[in-house]
């Protein structure tokens, strides 16, 4: 699904990613953990095509295509989804309108007919149940005036509607209380499938109690310094990030 090889990236003058290599296959959930400033969000941004980040070395293949050759919307239409750490408030743009426009772009790209208003609403209502959302959020402007929890729920709701092949969740747990966290994680779990891969970026192990990963990677100073199974997350929780940074392998 996704093969990232030796990717280095800069933001402005700052070198942030120093050679990231990771392979994600369909059906897998990978967690990327690391302390603040380790490059987690930059990695997510580079994969989604955020402006202002420059890939200086390395390559990424997504479903066999050169990811870095694609515009952000082409990546989205190919099935890459980024759930934002800070979802953007867009006053004046109706949430449902955005979803319908986006979904129909994806469907067009797949060669499927566009959904009409009725089919769209049927799909939407079904997906809203997953996230325990009510209609009022649909007709509000995108994220405008949403609480932190509502914004994150809205991101996962979009994921559920767009049904991407690869979902990247950037700190989806940040700012959530435990109830909201459970709801959001429940939505994510409902979307797990053998055909879909997920990359869960998080600072804390807490989210991984609810979204149990197949693999855990620890990012430090723009490199993956340790990879392992889900138990690695627990070990990190116990020992802190200092532990991996001190490992000899990390000093290379």
């Amino acid at each position: 699904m996704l093969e990232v090889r030796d990717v280095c990236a800069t933001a402005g003058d700052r070198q942030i990613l120093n050679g990231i290599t990771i392979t994600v296959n369909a059906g897998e959930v990978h967690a990327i953990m690391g302390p603040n400033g380790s490059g987690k969000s930059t990695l997510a941004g580079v994969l989604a095509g955020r402006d202002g980040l420059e890939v200086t070395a390395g390559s990424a293949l997504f479903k066999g295509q050169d990811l870095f050759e694609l515009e952000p919307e082409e990546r989205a239409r190919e099935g890459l989804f980024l759930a934002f750490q800070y979802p953007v408030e867009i006053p004046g743009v109706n949430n449902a309108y955005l979803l319908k426009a986006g979904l129909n772009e994806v469907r067009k790209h797949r060669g499927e007919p566009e959904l009409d208003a009725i089919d769209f609403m049927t799909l939407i209502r079904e997906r809203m149940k997953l996230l325990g959302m009510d209609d009022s959020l649909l007709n509000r402007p995108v994220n405008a005036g949403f609480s932190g929890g509502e914004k994150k729920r809205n991101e996962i709701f979009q994921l559920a509607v767009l049904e991407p092949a690869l979902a990247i969740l950037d700190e989806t747990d940040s700012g959530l209380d435990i109830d909201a966290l459970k709801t959001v994680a429940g939505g994510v779990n409902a979307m797990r499938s053998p055909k879909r891969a997920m990359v869960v970026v998080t600072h804390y192990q807490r989210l991984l109690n609810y979204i149990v990963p197949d693999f855990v990677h620890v990012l430090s100073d723009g490199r993956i310094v340790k990879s392992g199974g889900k138990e690695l997350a627990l070990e990190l929780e116990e020992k802190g990030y200092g532990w991996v940074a001190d490992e000899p392998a990390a000093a290379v």
Partner: protein
Amino acid sequence: MTQVATSPDSYATQFARFAEQTTLPVALAALRDDAFGCFDRLGFPTTALEDWRFTNVAPIAATTFVAATSAADYSRAALDALRLPRLGGPELVFVNGSFAPALSVTDGLPAGARAQNLAAVIANDAEGITPCLGRLARVDRQAFTALNTAFLRDGAVVDIASGVVVEKPIHLVFVTTNGAEPVLSQPRVLLRVGAHSQVRVVESHVGHSEAPYLSNTVSEIFAGDHAVVDHYALVREAEVAFRVGSLHATLGRASTFSSHTITLGGGLVRNEASVVLGGEGGTCTLNGLYLANGRQLVDNQTTIDHAQPHCNSHELYKGIIDGRSRAVFNGKIIVRLDAQKTDAKQSNKALLLSEDAQITTKPQLEIFADDVRCTHGATVGQLDGDALFYLRTRALSREQARQILIHAFAADLLGHIKIDAIRAQLDALLLERLPVRVGA
């Protein structure tokens, strides 16, 4: 020999001929003569005048436009091609400033409400309008108003008696079209609304002409006590056109007035709106939206005069400025000594879509009372890069994302428009006019 036959007559010659050919009652003739005297004395404004510092009308002054004296041949098909909103009520159509009865619908008004053309009113009941014409739009202040008044001939006169609610909007359509010489179209609007009455009046200013023309309009609105008046000016002049429009309104006690000026077309457009809150407890809303592109210049000048206590005013102007176009906004708010408990809000927001687009914005508050609340704000910005990226990650193209965000910028203003047909049409026109630019 007629060696200078291609050069139009000067305004003085045109005026002399016009005054000779048209007979007016004494009072109106005096107004007309005074107006031409003022125009002659004032001349077209120059950028040396503070109010015209950023709007150079030299191209208007350099051309001698010819005041049209009758409606050009104009077909229903041509009118339909303009895609004006269908408002379902009376529709008075004026071509090059002259009433076109064959294209107009004058019935459908309730008892106590009348919409007539000015030429007919001058012929039949000149005394009735003499006290009002030119009372708000003073000829000694502004050359364009003087010019309009000097050639006073036709336009719309709408009278609503006291206690009458007019359900359907009254649509005044002013079309300017090609003439042999540069056309000067100068219709006049007089709207008088009695106490406790309600009416909505929509002015559409449209044109199709490859040759430059000047559409110079003056509207005077008198709103009685407790009256509710909603006014719209929809400006879609031709690309090469010049337009100067002046709106003057005075409000009685506890009356509510709103005016929306929407500018989507015209080479040089100057919209002036001046409202006097002349009775206690009045409310005035002045909103504007403009879209400028190419080398257009759109200038909005507003004055809200709080002359009495306990009045509110709200003002929101939004501009979408692209290409090498320029916009000017000047919002003056006067709070007179007696106008305690005034609540005035003014906001002007501009979205610049290109490096070369420009806006000059100036709030101007003159406050003489001490127990008032006046706020003003101006923001100038570009499209939000984060929002663009967000939309693109949701599979929308850069172009779609831009359009959606630009439309969203205008959305709250469109939301204030209470006539569905106008709002729907503006929605569509806005999307159509939005710049399509790939890879920018």
